[in-house]
Each structure stands twice: as C-alpha cells, then as structure tokens.
C-alpha cells in the first residue's frame, strides 16, 4: 500500500529565524516599557495608601499590585504550558489518529514548565505574605483579636505538619511535587518522542500511551488541587466545590487557543504541509466546545451561589459585581469567552478558515487572562486593583517570553513525528 504521506517532507524542523525572534522581542520590550511606566506611576500615585489603612487592613503598597500581576501570569501561563502536555497525553491515551502531525506542537508548550516552576516558587516566597491572607500568623492565635475560627480550621491544609501560622510546608511540598511530576512527565514524553524519531516502530507509541495514562491520572488530581492552592486560597474564607474544574477549563480553553494559533502560525510559515483544513476544523471544534464548557462551569458556580444566597458564598460575587473596578469585567469576561466565540465559531466555515480562528483564539487568550485577573485581583488588592499599564505590560512580557521558550523548544526537535504509526491515517483524515 502506497503511503501518500511520504510525499511530504517529514524531516522538517522549525527554523526559529532571527526575524521571528526579533518581532517577539519587540513585543517583549514594548511590554517591559509599559510595565516600567506602570510601576513608576503606581509608585508616585500612592494616594490610596490612607484609604487602605482606614479600611482596617494593611496599608496598600504599589508592589502588592506588581506581585498580584506576577501571580496572575504565573498561574495563567503555567496552565497554558501544562495544557499543552495534557492535550498531548490525551491524544495518545485516546489513540487519536487525526492529531498525529501536530502532537509535537502541543508538547512544545511544556518547555515553559521548568521556568514556570522557578517563577512560581520564588514569587511565593517573596510575595506570599502580600498575596495570601492565610499567611498571617495572628489568624491562628486564639488570644489575638484577629483570630479566625474558619481559617484556623483550614490551617492544616497549608501548614501541616508544622504549627499553624509558622511555615506553610504542606503547601510548598504540594507545589514542588506537582511541578516536579509535571516536568518529569514532560521530559519522559520528550525522551520517548526523540527515541521514536530515531528508531521508529510501534513500541514507542505503546510506551507513550501508557505514560500518558499515568500522567492523566496524576493531572486529574493535581490540576484541581493546584487551583485550590494557587487561586482559591486567595479568598481564604470562601470555597467552591467546582473551582478546580473551573480553573482547569479556563486553562484548557486558553491552551487550546494557543495550540491552534501556533499551528496556524506554522502553516502560514510554510511548515506542516500535511495539516489541512480538516485538522484545523477539529482544533476549532475543540476551542468552540470547550468555550461552552467553560461557560457551563462559570455559570453553574454563579447560579448556585446566587440562588442559594448564603452570605459566606455570595461574598465572592458581591465583591466583584458591586465593585467599581471589577463590576464591568464580569461582563467583559462573559462576552469575550462565551458570546463572541460562540457566535463567531458556530458555522463550519469559520472553524475551517484561519482568519476567524486567529481572531477568536487571540480573543480567548486575552479573555481567559481577564478571567484569572478576576479570580486573583479582588482578593489580593481589593479596590486598589484594575487593568492599567502594569497589567497590560506584564501580560505582554509573560506572553512573549512564553512564545520565545515554546518556539525555541519546538525548533530543537522534529516538527512532525515522522515515525508516528498513525501519520497516514491523519493525512487521510476527512470531515
């Protein structure tokens, strides 16, 4: 049987040209400039400090906003990176054939994980006190006026086996273990992929399938717990049982959008010739479907809390909806992440042609940043937050740094898994 896939250049590698590097660096520098201007403005405009002190909490410092920004982007881009690995593992566990030529693009996103791990842990040590309410020792001191019974009850989740209020060893261990295993699985996948390119045969595919299954089990647990740790614990009193899924869905949509954008970008540069509109259509369906999935989770969380009307639960949405700073962003969030993708990507043609997908995927990457902004800032900054130069700049800096790392990683290996046993099936894929 003739394999038509052999007509394509399967040995091609992505050439990370100085031209592409330069344009990404330009965005990075613009972002850095905006960030610096934003920081300077925040340092000079210290007018909010007195208000903060009046409100009974700590006085507000400009660097708290910087920390909150770093934390938003740490969590967000860690999510995009791990979703790349997750989606890769899904392809193997599901024995998917259609996606064979683009699996390496998905895997490349994992290159950000080691850097994300370092950034996350360093930020936690530097900024943890300013980001997390539960870091304050007096909350756990029964003799203190600040003693909080509810947070005391949750304390062991952060501090075990140390005494509450001292050093959050359990929290840090979880962070290290999650990143450790994620990076471990990522490098395992990379190793098997490299061996497959060298040696061929189907044994590597079977090996990859087994490791993918192990990873998925680990990721199912770790993605939820990391969402509680890194995001939900900011609003320490409050809890939501589907928060892990909600954060995961936000990550997943952003990650799928990034993968789709990367595939369209590579195709535009003349790579991945065997990827045609049928494969792009499938990616489009994933983006469309999981945007609705995100909306479903967002709304499920909102509706139950709104309907039950229990004060300790509604506080989360009251804090956001009644705020001058965040109230509007709730609706921006819904419009960007549900209404527009839903309407634009509904037709078959929109999912098959790059223009609409590029538009919607870019929108979604910004939109889900807004989602994380709404999760993190109200709890850390209160009315001192908002989207300003610092937010835009930090997002651009992180985004272009991730692009540099991911594309750099992609350029190192083969772009197409040339010995993947389902390459021919993928070429014949037709929907």
């Amino acid at each position: 049987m003739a394999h038509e896939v052999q007509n394509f250049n399967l040995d091609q590698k992505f050439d990370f040209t100085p031209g592409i590097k330069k344009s990404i660096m330009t965005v990075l520098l613009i972002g850095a400039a905006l960030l610096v201007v934003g920081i300077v403005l925040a340092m000079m405009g210290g007018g909010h400090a007195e208000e903060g002190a009046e409100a009974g909490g700590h006085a507000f410092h400009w660097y708290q906003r910087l920390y909150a920004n770093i934390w938003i982007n740490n969590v967000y881009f860690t999510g995009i990176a791990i979703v790349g690995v997750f989606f890769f593992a899904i392809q193997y566990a599901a024995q998917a054939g259609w996606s064979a030529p683009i699996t390496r693009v998905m895997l490349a996103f994992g290159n950000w994980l080691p850097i994300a791990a370092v950034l996350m842990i360093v930020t936690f040590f530097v900024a943890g006190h300013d980001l997390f309410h539960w870091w304050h020792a007096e909350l756990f001191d029964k003799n203190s006026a600040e003693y909080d019974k509810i947070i005391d009850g949750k304390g062991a989740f952060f501090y075990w086996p140390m005494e509450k209020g001292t050093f959050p060893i359990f929290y840090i261990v979880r962070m290290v273990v999650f990143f450790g295993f994620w990076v471990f699985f990522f490098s395992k996948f990379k190793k098997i992929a490299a061996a497959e390119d060298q040696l061929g045969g189907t044994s590597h595919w079977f090996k990859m399938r087994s490791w993918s299954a192990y990873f998925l089990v680990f990721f199912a647990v770790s993605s939820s717990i990391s969402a509680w740790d890194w995001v939900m614990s900011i609003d320490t009193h409050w809890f939501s049982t589907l928060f892990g899924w909600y954060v995961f869905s936000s990550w997943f949509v952003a990650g799928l959008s990034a993968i789709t954008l990367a595939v369209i970008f590579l195709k535009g540069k003349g790579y991945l010739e065997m990827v045609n509109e049928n494969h792009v259509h499938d990616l489009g369906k994933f983006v469309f479907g999981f945007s609705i999935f995100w909306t479903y989770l967002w709304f499920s969380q909102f509706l139950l809390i709104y309907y039950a009307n229990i004060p300790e639960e509604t506080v989360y949405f009251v804090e956001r909806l009644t705020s001058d700073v965040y109230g509007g962003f709730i609706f921006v969030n819904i419009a960007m992440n549900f209404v527009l993708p839903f309407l634009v990507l509904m037709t078959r043609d929109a999912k098959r042609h790059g223009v609409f997908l590029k538009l919607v995927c870019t929108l979604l990457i910004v939109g889900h940043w807004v989602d994380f902004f709404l999760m993190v800032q109200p709890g850390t900054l209160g009315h001192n937050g908002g989207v300003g130069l610092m937010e835009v700049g930090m997002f651009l800096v992180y985004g272009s740094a991730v692009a540099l790392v991911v594309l750099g990683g992609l350029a190192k290996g083969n772009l197409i898994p040339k010995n993947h046993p389902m390459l021919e099936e993928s070429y014949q894929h037709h929907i």
Partner: protein
Amino acid sequence: MERDTHFVLGVYEDEDVLLDAVKQVRSSGVKIHEVYSPYPVHGLEHVLGYKRSRLPIAAFLFGMLGTSLALTMQFYMMKFDWPMIIGGKDYAAFPDFIPVSFEMTVLLAAFGMVGVFMVSSNLKPWAQPRIFDVRITDDKHVMAIDIANNSAMDQEKIKEILKSSGATEVNNKSFDE
C-alpha cells in the same frame, strides 16, 4: 399526480468502481437522479456534487425560537401572571431563567431538526417508498437515472455510458404513481 416515471439503473458491485463511475457519468453529461447503497460510501455525496445540507440553519432558527419562547413564558409568568418572590430576588430574575431557556433551546432545536429532516426527506408514515432494486439493501450499489431529466440523450447511449463506467448490469425500472 399521475405520471409514469422511467429510470435506467446501473448496478455496481464495488464502492471504488462506483465512485469513479459517478465521476465518469457526470462528466459525460448525464444527470444522475440518485445513488443507492447498502451502507454510507465515504465521499459519495462529494462526487455527486451535492451541496451541504441546510439543516443546521433550521436547527439554529428553531433553537432561537426555543430561547425566545422560554424567556417570554418565564417573564410573563413571573412578572405579570403570578408574581412571586423566590429567594429574595426580583420577580424577573434573569439568571434563574437561563436553565429553562437552555433546555427549551435544545428541545426545540432537536425537534425542529427532526421535523424538518422528515419533511425534506419525505419520511412520512404513509409515504410509498420507491424500491429501485431490492439488492440495494444487501450488497449492490445502484445508480438511478431519470429518463425525463435526460431527454436530450438517447436511452441506449446512457446505457452504453453506464456499461463502460463499470456497471455489472443495466436495467430499466418504471413506477406508476
């Protein structure tokens, strides 16, 4: 409507031969009435030059109808017909209406789509199906050509084209309706 309809049928045994035959027959200028096969043949609708189904448009419109009906119903009931305060909310509490609106959208889109499909495919219970050849339910593919649609071409010529495209037999079939 009383009229006799006459068809020329080409019987094919292999789906690959069939796909090529459809291309050949169409390029020689014969208009194909329909192709019948015992199982879906991938790419057949493509070589027959069928346009994409417009069923999704019907689904969208019926879905919109469902949404509007559900919202109108709930607003009317909760705001005007029998106002009730539930959970300390307004009478017309929009978020409460979403689940019902969603369900009505899905329900009407599904029912509407099934209904439109049945009407457009003539799937009514009293319809008399045209059986061109009983073997299309077993192991043969049949290409039906309506003589009336190909009046410019001689019947023998059509049979010749079918034969040369790989048909194992060529038959005539008439229906009295």
